[in-house]
Structures are given as C-alpha cells and as structure tokens.
C-alpha cells in the first residue's frame, strides 16, 4: 500500500457516473479493495474519498474507478481533467475470497449502484481463473445499469433486474438470487445498497457462504482513525472492526445487524 500523487489520464462521464483512469505506480490489488482519492482542492472536503477499484492494467501503471456524483467530493472527482494530480492511497482493505468453494459449482455475484464496480473487477478475476460466474445486477431503470460493456468484454452475460422492468427481470435483483440459490452455488458475493445486502444475507443464511462489501464513513481509510468501525460477531463475541482494514468485505453471518 502506498500514498502518492498520481495523475488522471482519462475521465469518461455518463450521467451521474464517471470512469476515471489514474496513472502512476500501481501496487497490484484484489477485487474488493479500494483507494482513498483526493484531488488538489484546497480545504474542503478535507478528506479523501474511498473508491473501489474497477480494474487495473497488466503493467501496474494504471488503475480505474467508477465514481457516482452524490456530493461535494465525488463532484470534484468528476471535475478532474487529464493531467490533474490526484493523491491516491491504496490499495486498501481486504478483498473477496478468490477460492475456497467447490470449484464445480458456480458463484453468484450480486451488484447494485456504486457496488457494481468492485463486482465487475471480481468477475474479471474469477473468469480468468475459470470459475463459473452468475452475475446479477439490479437498478431502477435500464439507464441505471452499469458497466454492461465491461462485462461483455470479459465474457460475462449478466442477469439483470430493473424496478420498472425496462430491461431484464421486473423487480429486485435479490429475486434473481432466490432463483439461483436453487442451483446451490458455491458462494455468494454482494456489494450494493444496504437493503440489498440485508436481503442477500437473509436469503443465504445457513445455506450458502455469503460475503458482502460494506460502506462506512471513513477518515483515513488505512486503519488509524477508528471512524469506520462496524460491529462484527464471531463465536458469540461482538466487537468493533474497521471497515477500511478488516473490511470492507465481511462474512454476512458475522453481521447480525445487517
């Protein structure tokens, strides 16, 4: 993990989403890890913003992110132009398991909203390793579905769900999961809105190993400030763990509050 000034080489906007490519010295990462990103924007916002890794090049010189504009920091990230300097600290946090389930059975990846980028990164890694992947993405309308081109590029044809049925199944992405569970997948990995994670954890409980990636209000992103903690229960003992360090990926069974 390093913290150094990188610079933006590409900023492709689509609606409220921008795909940012940063160039610099990149330390190899795993899907689920993230960076703290901050441009040279004076005093506010004071802190960097945690953004999941969408992918990186083989030459370890470029890393890509998908950023949704929701507030001041993400809007400033959207406004970055090629050549602009960005302080990038990472890769940070733990990552999704890349093995540990019966290789014969597929794994189900559930993604929604800003949770899609890390799952696309995970899908690309798993497909390289030849694992069977069922990728389910949910969104409000078909306009809100993300990174379909990238999924196609890695040869993954996603199962889609939209609230308005404008594309794929009309309803929640977790309804797709319910169907998939009948085929006894080897594991379920999810990243997205809290409600989606909660439903996912509920469906998998006691049936399938399920890992979810959490969000949290982060100060440092690398484990020193203790602002990002969440309650994790193991062997009946509940304790605070750092979403930025022990997480962001947690075994859903260890998050009873979810």
């Amino acid at each position, binding site marked *: *993990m*390093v*913290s*150094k000034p990188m610079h933006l080489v590409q900023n492709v906007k689509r609606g409220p989403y921008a795909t940012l490519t940063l160039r610099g010295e990149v330390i190899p990462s795993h899907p689920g890890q993230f960076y*703290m990103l*901050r441009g040279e924007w004076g*005093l*506010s*916002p*004071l*802190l*960097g913003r945690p953004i999941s890794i969408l992918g990186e090049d083989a030459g370890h010189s470029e890393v890509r992110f998908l950023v949704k504009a929701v507030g001041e920091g993400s809007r400033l990230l959207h406004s970055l132009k090629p050549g602009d300097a960005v*302080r990038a*600290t990472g890769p940070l946090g733990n990552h999704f398991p890349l093995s540990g389930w019966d290789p014969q059975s597929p794994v189900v990846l559930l993604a929604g909203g800003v949770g899609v980028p890390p799952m696309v990164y995970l899908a690309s890694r798993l497909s390289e390793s030849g694992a069977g992947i069922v990728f389910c993405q949910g969104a409000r309308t078909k306009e809100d579905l993300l990174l379909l081109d990238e999924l196609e590029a890695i040869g993954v044809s996603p199962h889609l769900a939209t609230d308005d049925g404008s594309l794929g199944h009309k309803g929640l992405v977790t309804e797709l999961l319910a169907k998939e569970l009948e085929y006894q997948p080897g594991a379920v990995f999810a990243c997205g809105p809290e409600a989606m994670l909660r439903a996912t954890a509920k469906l998998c409980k006691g049936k399938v190993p399920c890992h979810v990636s959490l969000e*949290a*209000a*982060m*100060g*440092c*992103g*690398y*484990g*020193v*400030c*203790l*602002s*990002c*903690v*969440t309650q994790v229960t193991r062997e009946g003992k509940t*304790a*605070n763990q750092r979403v930025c*360090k022990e997480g962001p990926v947690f075994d859903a069974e260890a998050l009873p509050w979810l």
Partner: protein
Amino acid sequence: MAVNLGVKVGSLQLKNPVMLASGCCGYALEMEEFFDLSLLGGYCLKGLCAGGSEGNPPPRLCETPGGLINSIGLQNIGIEEFLGEKAPKLRRVNSVMVANFYGHSVEEYAAAAEKLQAEPCIAALEMNISCPNVKTGGIAFGTDPKLVQEVTAACRQVTGKPLWVKLTPNVTDITETASAAEDGGADALSCINTYPAMAIDVERRAFKINTRSGGLSGPAIKPLAVRAVYLASKAVKIPVVGIGGISTWADAIEFILAGASAVQVGTALFSNPLAPLEILEGVREYCERHGVGDIASLIGAARDFERPACNLPR
C-alpha cells in the same frame, strides 16, 4: 548549510520536532506501511486505558469547513493487549514512542501510568485529560485546575518516565490548567486536544455524530491552537508540544515560533499519510533559507509587528 533539527522536550531528546498525534496514527504499525517511523522525532499512540474500550457507536466522524469532528470515544485494545501484542513489534523502531493514556478516576489514571511504566520502549507518557468524547474521565479532568494538578501528581508518583499532560482548549483560561499541570509535576504539556463541536445534517435534520457533540480538529482550529500554545508556553517553564491543524511545514514553524518545542501532526495524516515527511523536509528547507543553524533558536521567537500607522500587510 547544516541545520540542527534536534530538539529537547524536557529530558527527552528528539531527532527532529515532527511527531505524530495520538489517535491519528493508531498504534503506529499502520504508518510503517507508508514510511520508516524512525525518520520522525516521535509518535503518540492511540489513547490506552486498562482493559480497553469499544468506544462510541457510529457515526463517529463528519467533515466541517476546514476541519472534522470525531467522536471515537477512545476505543482501544487496552494497555495489557498493547504491551503483549503491539509493543514487542515497536521495540525495533528507532524513534521516541509516547504512550497516550487515560482513566475514569484519579486512581485509574495512576494505575494506567503504573502499568505502562514497565515497558522499556515507551519513552514518555502523555496523559489525556482532554478527550471531549467520553462521559467520565477525559475532559472532565482537564477543565478544573485542582483536578488537573491532583491527577498529574498521582501519575507523577507512580512513573519515572517523562510525563506529558495533554490539555483541553475548552477552558476560559488555559494558563490556569497549564500551571496546574506544571505544579502537579508534568515534564511537558501537549497543547492541544480537540475543540467540542457539533454538526447537523439539515436534510435529515439529525446530528451528524452519534454523540451529538464531538471534537473538532484540522486546519480550522490552527489559529486557536497557536494562541493556546503561545499562552501556555508563556505561563510555564516546562516545554510545550504544539498540536492543532498542522498540515504544512509553515504550520509547524508557526507553532514553534509561538512557543512549541515540538509539534504533532494529526488530522493531516488522514488525507496524506506522508504529510509528516513533507513537513519535516519543508522545515529543514525553511531553516536553510533563513540561515537558522539550530531550530531550537526559533522556539517562541515570534516578534511584534512593527509598522507605521499605514496598515500594509507587509
């Protein structure tokens, strides 16, 4: 030109005045992933207490203009686990380690100090009587001069290590608590901890921090902290360590000119873990540029502004 960046904080020699502030560098091991800790003058560990603490429920942090509010509530692994698990890993670090600690009563403070006394790699103790985020202990002890002296004396009794007292700025007159700590036997003052503050999310009409109030840190508080350091250093004979919003080399020099013998970098670490090294380099260049052979000569060296009645900033 050779610049001597070494400073003394009481009996303690630091290779340079740049330290890491408590609660902003964990137990220091996380920082080692970014740079070699032995490059710095020293570092202060996250506040420790006997038995440890789970701290406050989230949300624990929010941003404000030029600053941030935190309410961690002194979550820590406890002195015992620290001494067992972390300390051994830190012994090889060639830099001054300061153990920040607290309790919920005078007795607990003394007991904590005594527990830490044994560990050889701890160079000094920093007594935190200024955390705004715990109900008992913390700030409660830091605002009453009598209590400040009492709890300082109690810890002084049980430890031979240099004892730093970390003051809260949340007092009418910081010279009173500063003097009380000196009278209690403190070897140095850490000036300052966070300022009690509050933020409200207007869209949700809810407090942004679970405990409603939290502690404000970052650039926003720098001018308040500079004054606190100035006043405290004028009021006591023991050295003062400057803390509060330091994020550039110029900030560090400003605190030293105000009267600080060393400085601690806190919040600035979050957005840039390498800030301490950049500050250190900038301080060195400043000294070279100004022909300062010994940085100690800058401590408290700020002069009055001499201008005609004309009102020009320069």
